[in-house]
């Protein structure tokens, strides 16, 4: 075969590279600028309770988007992975529950918590990858449910029904990271790194092979890929995104309890990812922002309309239903199909 070695033209190479890297559009840079400047315009409540929370949930949903969108594996265990890391930081570090927490310094407790979170995600993945489709959903849901009930019943390590309170972001480099502005940047930073990693990995050999496995696992095995190992590695990578987000979530709430890893929140992550759109890594963040806004303001809206404030779940459920029915690729798909073509059309020309 050495005889048939082709001379690639430089232009073909450049084209190939451009297609592989894909430039960040101007709108992306504008969005980045707005997000970085946000503390100048938004109140503390918006910075932490809206954007901070949305970045955290978005990152956890992103780990699901990576597995589902690129790997074809719908994992319901991502919230549990995040919650596990959150529990670990409470157990290893400091919390109000001094008889359990080991009181390790944050620079030790946080990395070890993330590492254990990744380990938890990898083991869950190893259990789940030999199944496909609905069975993957079932087995990951079973792991999530088992962990939820375990934390509720285990008093000695997981603090039982009440969990851990008083888990705070640390103070270092002279910055109090629990203060609204630093915490906002912490959440934004991890969300941005996670997004960038997913975009990068999707076009790297590892991600390409994962998409190949999603499309045709049998053929990938016949090309020399160890499909099982590759899938487990994808779970490990997804857990690496979700685990730090879980630590941030614990710091945001100041506490971690079984309610954080309950079946409701586990399903919410799936809802967020689907509403936002599984096709691209930005989708989960759009979904998370919508979810957070609904959670925070739907209650007021319902009360204003004379309905019970408890019905906000109904609105989220209806939103999910409408998305699945009318735009299976989420809000992102709606944008791609309806809004952008019109905008481009109005701008005169269109490409």
């Amino acid at each position, binding site marked *: 075969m050495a005889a048939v*070695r*082709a001379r690639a033209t430089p232009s073909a190479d450049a084209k190939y590279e451009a297609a592989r890297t894909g430039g960040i559009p101007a709108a992306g840079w504008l969005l980045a600028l707005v997000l970085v400047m946000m503390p100048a315009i938004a109140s503390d409540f918006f910075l932490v309770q809206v954007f901070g929370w949305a970045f955290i949930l978005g990152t956890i949903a992103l780990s699901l988007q990576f597995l589902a969108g690129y790997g074809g594996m719908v994992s319901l265990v991502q919230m549990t992975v995040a919650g596990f890391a959150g529990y670990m930081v409470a157990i290893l570090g400091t919390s109000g529950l001094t008889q359990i927490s080991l009181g390790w310094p944050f620079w030790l407790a946080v990395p070890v918590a993330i590492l254990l979170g990744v380990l938890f995600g990898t083991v869950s993945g190893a259990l789940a990858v030999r199944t496909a489709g609905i069975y993957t959903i079932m087995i990951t849901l079973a792991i999530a449910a088992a962990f939820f009930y375990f934390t509720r019943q285990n008093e000695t390590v997981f603090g039982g029904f009440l969990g851990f309170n008083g888990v705070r972001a640390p103070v270092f480099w002279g910055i109090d990271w629990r203060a609204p502005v630093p915490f906002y940047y912490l959440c934004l930073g991890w969300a941005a790194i996670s997004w960038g990693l997913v975009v990068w990995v999707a*076009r790297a050999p590892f991600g390409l092979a994962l998409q190949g496995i999603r499309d045709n696992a*049998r*053929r*990938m095995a*016949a090309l020399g*890929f160890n499909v099982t190992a590759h899938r487990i590695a994808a779970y490990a990578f997804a857990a690496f995104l979700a685990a730090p987000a879980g630590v941030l979530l614990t710091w945001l709430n100041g506490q971690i309890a079984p309610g954080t890893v309950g079946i409701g929140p586990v399903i919410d992550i799936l809802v967020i990812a689907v509403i936002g759109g599984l096709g691209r890594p930005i989708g989960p963040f759009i979904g998370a922002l919508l979810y957070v806004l609904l959670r925070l303001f739907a209650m007021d809206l319902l009360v204003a309309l004379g309905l019970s404030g408890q019905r906000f779940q109904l609105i989220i459920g209806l939103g999910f239903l409408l998305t699945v029915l009318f735009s299976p690729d989420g809000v992102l798909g709606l944008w791609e199909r309806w809004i952008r073509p019109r905008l481009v059309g109005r701008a005169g020309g269109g490409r």
Partner: protein
Amino acid sequence: MATAIAERLSATGQVNALELRGVTKYFGALAALSDVTLSVRPGERRAILGSNGAGKTTLLNCITGDFFPTSGTIRFFGEDVTTFPAHERIRRGLRRTYQISLLFGGLSVLDNVYLACLGVSRGRFSFLRPRRGDPLLESARALVHAVHLDAVADKKVAELAHGQQRQLEVALALAGAPRFLLFDEPAAGLSPAERGELVAILNSLPSHIGYVIIEHDMDVALRVVESVTLMHEGRIFKEGTPAEIESDPEVQELYLGHRHAA
């Protein structure tokens, strides 16, 4: 690449490329393969003929590890690979194509071949994107060229004509350093002109690479092989040179379907 293969060949001596002993495969109570014993020398080119349901594709699936035989052993260049998963056999130099193209429709032609090259390289888990002049990317380009698909290298595979998809199937099987190939009806659905192109590609393979080809079209099969195995109802029925098989009265009766027609 060629020297590496020569070294491996001399190291393996006169060991057969493929050595099947008593391979049997049951699907429930149905014996798809019964006691198949077969040896193919390195570099040998062998056709497997037989009517539909004779067990040809099942045999290929057992050899590549798509599924495991119920009993019997499979040796690849002397090594017992009977219980090896498919990817382990592929990494040892076995390659195959599929009867119905199994390709990645959403990816470009080049990305398809790139994946094939990646599968038998050490960079499978790499997080680093390929850069200009990446050796894997270069060898992918060379393969695209070898199967005459340069013009559509950046096209999505789903947009390709059937014949081009069959050529791509062959390219995927040639990735890395193949030692032995299995072709499952590579000419299925091809036009006469495309068949000619396929025969040219098969005949241009380096002579040290042997293969087994399943083919209904005698014109293709008998022009590219030196020996023929005829299968019938999961068993080996006859073996010989193309000329012997063609002139065998028993074969003619069976393969041309007189008995079935009656």
